[in-house]
């Protein structure tokens, strides 16, 4: 009789477990990611300081020359820097950490356990969101001190953050993919860095494109980050929104649809 009762309790416990399992597992793994960032803040700080440095440098060095006044230029540059910061965080921090997990075998340990396949990924995405929040808050704080003001409304500003984060996350899979293909971690990091320049700077981020040579404009027109920059600019200081936002989201979805299976394929071939 006692056994019967225990069986019942255990069964209902198992049901509850299944229902909340994915949430709890993902949260446990989020905790792990955050502990890791706290212990090894190097790459995260790189991805944080670079945009801030660029923001200060560009605004005060070129601002007056490009836009006539630093304030006017800040208004133009800030949305671009925001996108740059999430693209950087994605390419460097997210990609590199997933890459390292795969290589060190931590990923396989999780995959051999009775948890949802998506739990490690969700864990890393949620942890990243926390990183992105810190990055964006820092950036907004610096921007505010420099005199930048959101000219639309709170909801649009949040949407701008969402667009930037989505783009950063989808691009992070470039470094996951490259990381699985190439064994040497330092090379992966170099490639991630090199990728940042055409992606982040080959846009209308620092200056309007009218005066640029044709070949560069051709690239800028294809570059998905350009759409991200335009979208965020529209959402923060006004301008066209619907087109660029749609383009950014489509590009992001495209990157994920192509790169996630490619990474999994490359990963399974490696062993």
């Amino acid at each position, binding site marked *: 009789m006692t056994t019967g009762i225990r069986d019942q309790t255990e069964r209902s416990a198992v049901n509850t*477990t299944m229902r909340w*399992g994915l949430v*709890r*597992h993902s949260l*446990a*793994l989020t*905790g*792990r990611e955050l*502990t*890791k960032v706290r*212990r*090894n803040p190097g790459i995260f700080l790189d991805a944080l300081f670079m945009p801030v440095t660029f923001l200060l440098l560009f605004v005060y060095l070129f601002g007056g020359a490009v836009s006539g006044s630093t304030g006017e230029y800040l208004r133009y540059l800030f949305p671009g820097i925001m996108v740059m910061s999430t693209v950087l965080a994605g390419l460097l921090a997210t990609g590199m950490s997933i890459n390292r*997990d795969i290589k*060190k*075998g*931590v990923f*396989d*340990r*999780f*995959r*051999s*356990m*009775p*948890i949802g396949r998506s*739990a490690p990924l969700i864990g890393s995405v949620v942890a990243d969101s926390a990183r992105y929040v810190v990055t964006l808050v820092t950036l907004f704080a610096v921007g505010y001190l420099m005199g930048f003001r959101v000219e639309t409304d709170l909801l649009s500003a949040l949407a701008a953050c969402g667009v930037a984060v989505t783009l950063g996350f989808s691009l992070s899979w470039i470094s996951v993919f490259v990381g699985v293909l190439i064994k040497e971690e330092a090379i992966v990091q170099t490639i991630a860095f090199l990728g940042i320049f055409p992606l982040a700077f080959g846009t209308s981020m620092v200056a309007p494109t009218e005066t640029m040579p044709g070949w560069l404009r051709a690239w800028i027109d294809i570059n998905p980050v350009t759409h991200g920059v335009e979208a965020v600019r529209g959402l923060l200081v006004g301008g066209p929104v619907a087109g660029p936002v749609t383009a950014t989201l489509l590009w992001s979805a495209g990157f994920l649809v192509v790169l996630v299976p490619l990474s999994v394929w490359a990963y*399974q*071939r490696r*062993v």
Partner: protein
Amino acid sequence: MDYAFEAEGLVKRFGKTTALAGVDLAARSGTVLGVLGPNGAGKTTAIRILATLLRPDEGRAEVGGLDVVKRAADVRRLIGLTGQYASVDEDLTARENLVLLGRLLDMGRARAGARADELLGLFDLAEDAARRVSTYSGGMRRRLDLAAGMVGDPRIVFLDEPTTGLDPGKREDLWRTIRSMTADGRTVLLTTQYLEEAEALADDITVIDHGAVIAHGTPAELKRIVGGLTIAVRAADAEGARVAAKVLRAVSGSEPAESGGGALTVPVDTAGALTEVTRALDAGGVEVAELSLRLPSLDEVFFALTGRHDEREESAA
């Protein structure tokens, strides 16, 4: 017979490379199966299929009576995995790693903590529990890897080359730990490149090479095939070497072979032969630079098993 896991005709290809070309593996409940083979033989691929990390291209495998492809999620509840490709997080402390794994196995916070402390004690890591794993020595790291595979108290444990890269003294420490893990009726699949490790730990040994099984049996059966032990003698001078050759021939009844560094080796059946050799060398006044008794190396085992070997091992078999 009651098998804890059983695989039949496993085939796995990676591009043009065939990692497994039809491998059968099975272990009775409560026994240790040693899978012995050189680097690249397919050991890790086989373990990864049994641990649901890879799907076989052909063949089938069951763990605890459950198909590893169709019932992968259930199989994962039964197994613990440790090895090259299933590792712990180096940025976390040992305790944090074990608690995390406990939490992922649906233990409450308190229970996960208690289980972590229990394992840290069992695997002799309690004093270093709060240190980051990146600061650990090779041996400690391996012990933690083993502990990590044991968090859920699994009935079936896969150990992929648990001692590779450790120096011999550390290896024996780890063997003791592994033996304690297998004492209470757990079934273990252990892959290794070392014959003495398979012999020390396994009830049955499957030898694989180039993705195929080339022998299966108890350690004693395999030793009978490969000829027990090898005595090696290196004399200090040429005259001594001549006498030593005569002594070895007399004791073992087979022609000594010259191995690297001018040492002469003969296969022998019992360790007692070493005493005989020592006595005869002493009586012959041979100055000895090196004298040893050892198990056949993995190379010698493979030569013996695949038939691609020279006269001396043939006569030993």
